[in-house]
């Protein structure tokens, strides 16, 4: 696209020659990188599904398998730290297949000069999070790089879990009529990290929502038929909905007024010109649930800590396949599309 255009036009219209931060945003640039570079190189039936985890049949059991790297700055933020995040992130990627998470690995890339007491605090936090989530960290690796070659500490966790019989959850299983249930407020994690990193002086502290979600998922599975699940991390709720709409070939309609956003998160987003729909969460999920089961699933969610603010925010429709439509507060509508990049604060 646009290549012949580039010859006549001084503006860059073709792809980038180097990796830029946007390639890690979870939006369109990330998707392009996966589609154009990684997928052709590693192509296989499991990877092609582009779910957050692969579900593999091994000796009669169905195993969910996933990996995730954590590079957050700062290492400690209100409501959590990189260690807690590294456990919850992988536990949640497993949980989104309906799996019961069992074992994790942890790999640490440390920058020369990282204070040992910080590493000890992070390790203790990881151990506590793993214990609370009922997973064991059973193998690992450590590497140290020269000062300047990494930003203090990067952690990669890999996890496996067991998918119970009869559970078939995948983005591609969502269908028209499904109710879209969100497990709670959005934007907390992204704005907690952003406001700490940028030293924004806000009236109240925003805390990350980082939390393991597998217990919530198990409660939901017991209550009714779940078709699709995603935890809206990078790229936020809008990105997860776009991915599910695309994967299942359905339309999605959600209502701005039904989406819970905490007051300080909303205020910070207003000040910075950012949209909470595109801000990261680390302890939330969005579910596509068979209409007959929606009330029971919602009630089961609200009975848990992680799902106490759950709400039905919209539904899947047969119209406009692949497209997510937001009904705005004043009764208008707009289409939500995959973001190109990370959101940037606006001038005015």
């Amino acid at each position, binding site marked *: *696209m*646009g290549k012949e*255009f580039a010859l*006549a*036009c*001084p*503006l*860059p*219209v*073709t792809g*980038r020659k*180097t*990796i*830029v*931060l*946007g390639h890690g945003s979870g939006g*369109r*640039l990330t998707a392009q990188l996966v589609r154009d570079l990684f997928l052709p190189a590693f192509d296989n039936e499991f990877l092609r599904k582009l779910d957050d985890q692969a579900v593999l049949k091994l000796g009669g059991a169905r195993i969910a398998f996933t990996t995730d790297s954590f590079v957050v700055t700062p290492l400690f933020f209100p409501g959590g730290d990189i260690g807690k995040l590294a456990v919850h992130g992988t536990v949640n990627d497993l949980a989104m297949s309906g799996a019961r998470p069992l074992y994790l690995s942890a790999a640490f890339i440390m920058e020369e000069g990282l204070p040992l007491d910080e590493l000890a605090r992070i390790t203790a936090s990881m151990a506590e999070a793993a214990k609370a989530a009922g997973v064991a960290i059973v193998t690992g690796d450590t590497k140290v790089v020269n000062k300047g070659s990494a930003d203090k500490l990067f952690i990669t966790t890999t996890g496996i879990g067991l998918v119970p019989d009869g559970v078939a959850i995948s983005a591609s299983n969502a269908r028209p009529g499904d109710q879209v249930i969100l497990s709670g407020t959005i934007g907390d994690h992204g704005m907690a990290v952003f406001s700490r990193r*940028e030293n*924004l002086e806000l009236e109240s502290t925003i805390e990350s929502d980082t939390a393991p979600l597998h217990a919530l998922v198990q409660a939901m599975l017991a209550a009714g038929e779940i078709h699709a699940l995603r935890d809206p991390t990078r790229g936020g709720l809008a990105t997860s909905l776009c991915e599910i709409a695309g994967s299942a070939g359905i339309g999605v309609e959600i209502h701005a007024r039904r989406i819970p956003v905490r*007051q300080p998160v*909303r*205020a910070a987003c*207003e000040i910075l*010109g950012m949209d909470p729909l595109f801000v990261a969460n680390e302890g939330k999920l969005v579910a596509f649930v068979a209409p007959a089961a929606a009330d029971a699933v919602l009630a089961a969610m609200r009975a848990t800590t992680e799902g106490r603010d759950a709400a039905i925010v919209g539904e899947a429709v047969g119209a406009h396949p692949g*497209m997510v439509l937001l009904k*705005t*507060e*004043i*009764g*208008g*509508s*707009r*289409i*939500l*599309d995959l*973001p*190109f*990049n990370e959101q*940037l*604060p*606006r*001038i*005015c």
Partner: protein
Amino acid sequence: MKYLDEYRDERVSTALLDEIRRTVTRPWTLMEVCGGQTHSIVRYGLDQLLPAEVELVHGPGCPVCVTPLEMIDRAHAIARRAGVIFCSFGDMLRVPGSQGDLFQIKAEGGDVRIVYSPLDCLKLARAHPERPVVFFAVGFETTAPANAMAVWQARAQGLANFSLLVSHVLVPPAIAAILESPSNRVQAFLGPGHVCAVMGWSEYEPLAERYRVPMVITGFEPVDLLEGILMAARQLEQGRATVENQYARAVTREGNVEARKTIGRVFEVCDRAWRGIGVIPRSGYRLRPEFAEYDAERIFDVRSVHAAEPAVCISGQVLQGHKKPHDCPAFGTQCTPQTPLGATMVSAEGACAAYYNCGRHMAPASR
């Protein structure tokens, strides 16, 4: 949330829409001047709720969009210099110059930083006395007071390593340029609320009178915009053409007198080139001669950097309200926020990017 929820209320909006429907008897074309207003209109789907008689066209009030390619290239030339700490508001980082954007320069080792106020740059300049700290001062009258204050304080604090790359533009001359154009079709303006919070609205009175166009200084929330549209429609229907103030909770006729004084001490009016439009006489600010030592263009000697705009893009016509984003064959195909061909696609405030980000490249063309 106070001061927000009541301006996003569906019942109030519906009542205003009904009143607009009752008021208009024939087609009218209104221009909202500000990028922030365009953003709200598209974000809330407000234009789709209006009666068919009211057409909104989108104005030139997006500072990122109207900053000339040449100025962006000059910024990039400075940001590439070894040792320089180049500071900018966030959305300027993504704007492509002739070769890449500030993100690219950052990826290649340039020290490019996002700041939230030009005053943050003074802290940086104090912390790194051996390095030049440059702030890319882009924007309308709204951002001018803080930029002027940064220079003023830099001099008071004796900071010799801080400078401004100034690309300030002014709203009233742009409105005059649009009205002077033979192909103009704008019949009333929703004036720029935040610009007027600083400058007041007295400058708009001669424009309303001379060109016989209603001007309603308008805020940025859906209810503000609908109220502004209603006030403008009433003037049009009644054959009046005066300046009215919808945004009374922020704007007075005099504006912010202290802020205007600060601007006047540091900046003077000059001719400026607008991306997509061209040079408009007396349409911008530059540093006064007594502040020349804070002028990054002079310090880094980048005035010889020149660039030409691409011919394919219709952004000039979009910025003047002659065309809408989806009138362009490249919109959403060759031209996207990732591969922008021109001004109005580069910033979230730009009409083309606002349309794109709200998915309108996928929807059947709306009015």
